[in-house]
């Protein structure tokens, strides 16, 4: 059977058409498969980024194309106290809000990791602040912080009688800064909590049982088991959280527009204010470009932290 079948089989084989040959060639496939992705990246990421960087070195305004002015925009920004206030507040805002979000988020995650009645319902509810569009929650906070109509002032002054004056949340620099940070923390907690909860659930219960048998205290279990095993996901979540917080825009723009007297401008809001509202497109771009080093730092931090196995798998595993 096989003797007669073999020649007929080899005769049936045809030379592949040019299309098939093209699709068989590895270089072509690489180009063809990468092209859509590279094309999208070029059009929607590289081009705008490149344009933004180019604009930062010109004197473009809205409605007038600019000329190359070198570092003039950056030189001006170096001497601009408003810019430095924005840099300071961006870093401060990110640092304080991140610490707050992680402290409270981790706490919430640990609570949610216990067996509670209606566990899934509670977890869904926890996500609400994160799901609500930021602009809506920002407007809600705008009312909460309103000098005349604040619910907090109302409770303290008119209901409890603990104060005789309304709170002035947004009227001076530091209270306004902390009010915005509080709003940002409120919004950011669910993201952190849910991510860390996912991390907590990957920790095998047998580790805790073993520790319990060895007589470990709850604090020891937390520091020796939970924290080290949570580290990898903590690093990722923290990187994301830092980037989101650093580039925050909507909360500040909706609640204070950077006021009072520019004390709550973040670099992102200042860039928008100068570039779009103020029509100094080039200067806005320069401020946006000045954010890049901070964001690169945050990304590199995560990259190296994640690449380190010590972080991921404990001290002794080199």
């Amino acid at each position, binding site marked *: 059977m096989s003797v007669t079948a073999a020649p007929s089989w080899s005769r049936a084989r045809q030379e592949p058409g040019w299309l098939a040959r093209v699709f068989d060639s590895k270089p072509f496939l690489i180009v063809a498969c990468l092209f859509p992705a590279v094309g999208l990246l070029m059009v929607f990421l590289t081009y705008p980024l490149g344009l933004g960087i180019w604009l930062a070195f010109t004197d473009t*305004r*809205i*409605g*007038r*194309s600019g000329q190359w002015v070198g570092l003039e925009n950056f030189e*001006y920004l170096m001497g601009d*106290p408003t810019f430095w206030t924005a840099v300071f507040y961006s870093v401060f805002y990110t640092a304080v809000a991140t610490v707050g979000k992680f402290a409270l988020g981790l706490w919430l995650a640990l609570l949610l990791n216990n067996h509670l009645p209606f566990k899934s319902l509670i977890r869904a509810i926890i996500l609400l602040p994160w799901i609500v569009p930021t602009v809506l929650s920002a407007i809600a906070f705008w009312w909460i*912080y*309103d*000098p*005349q*109509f604040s619910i907090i002032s109302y409770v303290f002054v008119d209901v409890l009688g603990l104060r005789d*004056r*309304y709170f*002035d*949340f*947004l*009227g*001076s*620099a530091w209270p*306004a800064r902390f009010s915005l940070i509080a709003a940002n923390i409120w919004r950011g907690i669910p993201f952190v909590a849910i991510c860390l909860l996912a991390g907590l659930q990957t920790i095998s219960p047998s580790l805790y049982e073993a520790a319990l048998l060895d007589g470990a205290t709850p604090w020891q279990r937390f520091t020796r088991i939970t924290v080290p095993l949570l580290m990898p996901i903590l690093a990722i979540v923290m990187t994301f959280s830092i980037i989101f917080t650093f580039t925050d825009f909507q909360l500040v723009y909706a609640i*204070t*527009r*950077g*006021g*009072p*007297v*520019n004390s709550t401008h973040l670099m992102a809001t200042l860039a928008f*204010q*100068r570039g*779009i*509202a*103020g*029509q*100094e497109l080039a200067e806005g771009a320069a401020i946006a470009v000045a954010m890049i080093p901070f964001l690169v730092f945050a990304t590199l931090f995560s990259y190296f932290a994640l690449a380190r196995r010590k972080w991921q798998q404990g001290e002794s595993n080199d």
Partner: protein
Amino acid sequence: MTNRYTRRTAIGLGAGALAAAALSREGLAQAIPRQDVQAPRLPIESGAQLRVIRPARFVEPDEVIFRENAQKFSQQFNVPVRVDFVGWEDIRPQTAVTANTGTGPDVVLGWADDPHIYADKLIELSDVAEYLGRRYGGWMFLAEKYGKRHATNNWIGIPFGGTTGPIVYRISAVREAGFQSIPDDLGEFLRLCQALKRLNKPAGFALGNAVGDGNGFANWMTWAHGAYLVDEEGKIAINSRQTLDALNYVKELYQTFVPGTLSWLDPSNNRAYAAQECWLTANGISLYYALKNDPNTRAIAEDTDHAPLPKGRVDQPPQSATILNAMVFRHTRFPNAAKAFIQFMMESEQYDPWLTGCLGYWSHSLRNYSRSAVWDSDPKLGPYRNGMNHPFWSGYKGPITAASGTVNSEYIMVQMYASVASGQATPEQAVREAERRARRIYR
């Protein structure tokens, strides 16, 4: 003046502005005196169609009547017109894109400075402007200022109207404070605000980053003290004795404000006033309109009156206007249709119902519309009647450029006052900082 028009007043607005406007549209149009002047010959291009953009409405009739008028133009001239209403903050960028790309709407009703920024890309509108001016008794001061190209007689924009923010106050509170009206003298005005504060019915003006209200207050204070940001040539002149006086004055005046004005944005004073937390502020007609139309606040509206901003050291109310300025870009394929559209919208058959329906929200730009029934419909609208006629403009005393708009949107003047009011800076520091920032923008 008022007595002469009692008949129209009676037809007028007792039954609500909108209804009256719809019912007596033709009758009202008769009332505006106008000359029979030869209209410019504008043969409509065949197959013409127009796209118009303008800022979104603040009061409902603004959009409704504007659309009706555009519809009427479509029918009479057989030119389809599409009107798009764009958010107030978006129309500037859209105008810029239109100007730079050479495509987009045929008629742009943008903001005051825009025609001056894109002057080279616009069709001259002098024929329409001169015709309308002759027909309706001439243009108001600000209309001419913003319509004509700097230092020429060439019209590049047709101002449709402007909103202003005079003083809005509670009659009862001001009486209680011992005043019959809003004093023009700044010292007296300070005493009024101090008395209001003592009565626990304080005044309040926005010192936060509020584009309209904040800049309105800052400009008022500056001009009322005889100071100005730039001189006639556009050189920065803010660092002056007069500005320091203004800053010291605001420092004292701020003590009388309702708490929280440093964080006020544009809607804040409306809310505080409607909630009876603030008893004297400056605002456009929209506040009164909203109070009057809501049964819950009608009592507040009845106790409300308007007054021009106190003059201080100058002889006219130191007030500018936010102006709606129409322009036609060179790229349009139907320039005659576009011009005809603008002209049509400014004729009294269309313009007067619009003005009336908006209850004076956009103060008129052509003089004879001062006779419009709307201004007599409610004596409280008085200060808005001359809204376009005050000899002050944003960037006073300089030429109109993009820079004056940027100074406003960067809140340079507002922040100068806010930093002194909050005690963050001395008047000298604040004025130097404002000078530094303004120099950069006017470079």
